[in-house]
């Protein structure tokens, strides 16, 4: 049963064109290792340099968003401070395009702002996104933000289509947030 069960799980991922899927506690070290494996895989398959860069860039921004902003976190002090953030990053191909999906828990209090930012980016065309990126690059960082203001714009800039996103309510305080980017 064990092999059958996981074979079917793997088969389902393969059917969806998934190259990598990571679910669980994500750290900067995992980001680095997965990112490298992703670049190697794409390079071996002769993807062009710009595509590899775009996919890698979106992957890094999404993974760092999870590490920084996931509301599902474990933290403690075991000689040194450790903080682990839970989430999902999935990369695959469909219709000759790469896609990157990330998902994590967000606090209900943060949902309207995130939604508003993503809606704004969805409403912009390529030139508007580029202009907005350049404008935000010059701005001093927002209080509390560790860089995501510009991170989402970077993601939108690399995407070939408007970013898809959705929030699934978990309870009064939390949402499961999911974002899909096609390249």
């Amino acid at each position, binding site marked *: 049963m064990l092999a059958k069960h996981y074979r079917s799980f793997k088969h389902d991922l393969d059917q969806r064109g998934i190259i990598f899927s990571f679910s669980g506690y994500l750290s*900067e070290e995992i980001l*680095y290792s997965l990112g490298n494996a992703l670049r190697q895989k794409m390079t071996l398959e002769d993807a*062009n*340099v*710009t595509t590899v*860069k*775009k996919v*890698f*860039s979106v992957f*890094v*921004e999404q993974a*760092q968003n999870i*590490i920084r902003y996931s509301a599902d976190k474990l933290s403690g002090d075991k000689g040194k401070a450790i903080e682990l953030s839970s989430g999902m990053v999935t990369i695959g191909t469909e219709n000759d395009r790469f896609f990157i999906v990330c998902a994590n828990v967000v606090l209900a209090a943060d949902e309207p702002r995130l939604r508003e930012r993503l809606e704004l980016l969805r409403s912009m065309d390529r030139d508007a996104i580029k202009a907005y990126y*350049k404008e935000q*690059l*010059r701005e001093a*960082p927002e209080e509390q933000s*560790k*860089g995501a203001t*510009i*991170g989402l*714009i*970077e993601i939108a800039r690399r995407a070939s289509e408007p970013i898809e996103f959705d929030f699934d309510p978990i309870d009064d305080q939390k949402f499961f947030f999911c974002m899909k980017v096609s390249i």
Partner: protein
Amino acid sequence: MENLTIAATERSPAVDFDFAAGRLSLKGESYPEDASAVFGPIFAALETFLGAAGDREVTFDFELIYFNSSSAKALMNMFQMLDQAAGAGCRLQVNWFYAADDDTMKEFGEDFSEDLDHVGFHLVAVE
């Protein structure tokens, strides 16, 4: 002043600031957990150096392969510092090296150069 040399790590660039020779370079990749921790010491050294640079000649080579959005923000701050120093008389030249087939790094170079009024900026494609 003392030169600043920082070895590259897996996710941060190599820094080689030879202040005596007026030759500065930043090379590699930049997507650290905390961009301010990586760029803080770089900014501090640059600020001291540029503050006393007067009208001397300085060349800054950027050979970056990839950087994330927080690093892009730090680079923008750095270019603003460079342009200010150049406005005050420092003869600053920037070489922005990028792989010839890498549109992303080329575009970043173009983006940064658009904001410079005083720095001599050269986009250099590397085959």
